[in-house]
């Protein structure tokens, strides 16, 4: 079993042990599973507010910022710093996304290399988590692609350039390498809610767990996995099937 598959099952099993029956809370626990603890050392070393931008080399004079300034326009959105390649391609449609998940103590070095790869391979847009919490979350770097062929090219280049980078791992995503540093996913079609794959799958799993609130944790997990299979989601790769997104999820 690959590491991300183990991590995803650990998320499900741990959450199933909880006594909470609020779907939103359960979904949030699943979604945030794999987030590194915010410790006094992290506070001290990464710094508050937007100081972690310096760790990424995104401050004035930083290596990553100088590289990105040549090809990308930055935007700050809630919880994220996003970068879009120039010239803007307004007709592009995202069909898949790449997750890059280095551990927080490796994210600075990894980000420098990643920026080079993204620029060289023409990645259209990507985002990186903002603030301490942005760097502690597992899905801290997400890149968007129009087709899986391009994603494959970029992933191969990254795998070579980030060979010894320690991985954190993004649960509920499809592994590309063995340790979970790189993974990918497919978002629901436009107009569906939730809009992102991880938000969709964790809401779906939360429904499955909460609907079995009075069963044992083991039975809750087994039931959730059975529901998942019925929805066409592959439990090993965490990729959706052809009809997966036709399912309605309770708000």
């Amino acid at each position: 079993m690959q590491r991300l598959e183990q991590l995803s099952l650990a998320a499900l099993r741990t959450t199933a042990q909880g006594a909470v029956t609020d779907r939103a809370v359960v979904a949030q626990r699943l979604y945030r599973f794999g987030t590194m603890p915010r410790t006094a050392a992290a506070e001290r070393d990464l710094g508050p507010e937007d100081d972690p931008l310096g760790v990424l080399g995104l401050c004035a004079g930083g290596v990553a910022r100088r590289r990105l300034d040549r090809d990308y326009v930055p935007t700050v959105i809630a919880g994220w710093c996003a970068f879009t390649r120039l010239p803007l391609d307004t007709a592009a449609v995202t069909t898949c996304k790449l997750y890059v998940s280095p551990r927080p103590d490796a994210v600075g070095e990894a980000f420098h290399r990643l920026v080079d790869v993204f620029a060289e391979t023409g990645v259209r847009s990507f985002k990186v988590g903002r603030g301490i919490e942005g760097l502690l979350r597992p899905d801290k770097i997400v890149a968007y692609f129009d087709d899986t062929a391009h994603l494959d090219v970029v992933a191969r280049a990254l795998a070579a350039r980030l060979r010894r980078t320690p991985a954190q791992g993004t649960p509920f995503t499809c592994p590309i390498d063995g340790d979970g540093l790189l993974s990918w996913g497919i978002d629901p079609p436009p107009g569906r809610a939730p809009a992102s794959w991880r938000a969709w799958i964790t809401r779906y799993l939360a429904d499955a767990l909460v609907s079995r609130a009075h069963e044992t944790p083991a039975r809750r997990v087994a039931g959730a996995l059975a529901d998942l299979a019925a929805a066409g989601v592959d439990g090993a790769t965490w990729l959706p099937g052809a009809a997966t997104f036709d399912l309605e999820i309770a708000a």
Partner: protein
Amino acid sequence: MIGAPLDLTVTPLVLPPDAKVLRVRELAPRLRARVGEDVDDHAVVTRPGFRITARLMPAPLVALVEEFRRPSLVTDAVARFATAHAQSPDDTIDLAFDALITLVEARILVPDGSDDLHVPEATLAAGQAFAGVEVATLVRGLDDSEVYRGRDDDGRDVALKIGRAGRPEVALTLGREANVLEALDGRGAPRLRAAGVEDGRAFLVMDWCEGVPVAVAAQQARAARDRGALHRLAVRVAEAYARLHDRGVLHGDVHPGNLLVRDDGTVVLIDFGNARPVDAAPGIDPARTGIPQFFDPAMAAALLAGEPPPVATVAAEQYAVAALIHLLVTTLAPIDAPADRQALLRGLVADPLRPFVTRGVPAWPSLERVLARALEKDAPARFATTADFAAALAAARPPSRRGPSLARASSRVRDAVSATLVEACDPRGEARTVAHAWCALQAAIVFDDPVWLAQAEVLLDSAPADDWRTHAVGVAVARARSDAARERRAAEALARCAGGLAADDVAAACGAARDLVHALPFSSGSDVLREWLGGAAAPPARGTGDQPGRGGLARVWESLERYRATGDPRALISATRALRRARPRAANAAVAAAWFAVQQPETPARPPFAAS
């Protein structure tokens, strides 16, 4: 600095519209942490774009300063203030006069109608030519000078530093800087390309130095938990100043904003406007200035005594460089830097240097010894030269990293910790207590493990909702999850639950609340707890586990407290020994809690459950 004598009896003063008066509670957490915990009723006054240090003022002085929102003579403003606050005008002016003068000198209060009333604007536009430079962007605009990035006639990227019109003192500073840069000829500093006066404005043209501020380079090393990189940076910083001193120059303004680190790790010193020769005759130097945190004790003592600063020396600058390195390595100034300038100066003169561990930073004994010598209060006790300091620093390599490991504990302790963590995961729920949640949280922190963190959150589901301990752990777990809203709710629940308890339990709850506030003073949960502690009747008590003198694990906590207070490694060894002896009489959760504390001794975290 005021150009001509100002007669305050006839000159109306005004608080400029751009001057910001911010209450301490309105400041960002980072700034509040720097200001301190006991000044919530104070305010900070600052002006964007002015070369002034933000001033911290008590509430009455703020109210008086606000009287200058409309142009007023000092006497008129004082009279209005005294009437409004039922005070004697004479007493008010006696108490406030020195502070008002300081604000005038800092150009926070300025003469009505003067140029200082307005925010400095960029005087050059992109594409404009000045002194042979095509201006590209404004890098920094201050009230007395501007720095632009541009390109010279040879196509080189350059920095153009120019004084503002009507600021003759800047011409002096730039002239001094030009002389130093010419002498250094690009060694460890930007290469000077041109200097002079154009359109009545003094200017310098220097090579543009690409790089990040030294504070960012240090932050990158700290974030990577790479003390080797931090050590290399510290040595390069010290060597940069050592080379400068060898060339007969003192920088004169040591602070993190005046060092850049290039991509290859080279350290470049910038801004030589306050440079001095190393061989100046002893005496006073009224123009000597700088950032107070980096003043050496002799300068601090002179300023405290109301005397002019002494002449800068190599030993004084060695102190400043050591203070800078201490800041880069730990994020802390060597002496706690209170916002009150006089208190800071007193600290620089008298306060001893504290070991890293007593300030929540992992120990680094060899480096601490070198910094302690360079930071000696008496100049002769420091290293003879900055080169000697740099060499000693180079030898102070970081201790080999010994990550926490269950295998390092004795077998009995290891078994207890393992058993506790296994119990914590028991899906049958029989062992689900707040103690297990706390241990799971500590395991998450010690092992940097997100799975244990999720486990801690889930374990709390089954903890009793009417027990303050549940919510004390809840605050810590929510904090570790970066969940500010949940942290605040847990803090409110803790205060509610503890409100109706017997005195002993309230004391324990207060101790837990104090530990939480101490760990992260300015989180939303800490705000709630601080407010509650302010009204709680319980006596101060730190720690909520066992009480000293009860044997067993009590000795572990006593030894740890001693280690955190003194940094004495023998206390940590005592804690470890006591932990090994304690096992037979203690519950697994308590042993696990003590073990986690020994593994992470910089983090004060007593468990909110009985540990003996």
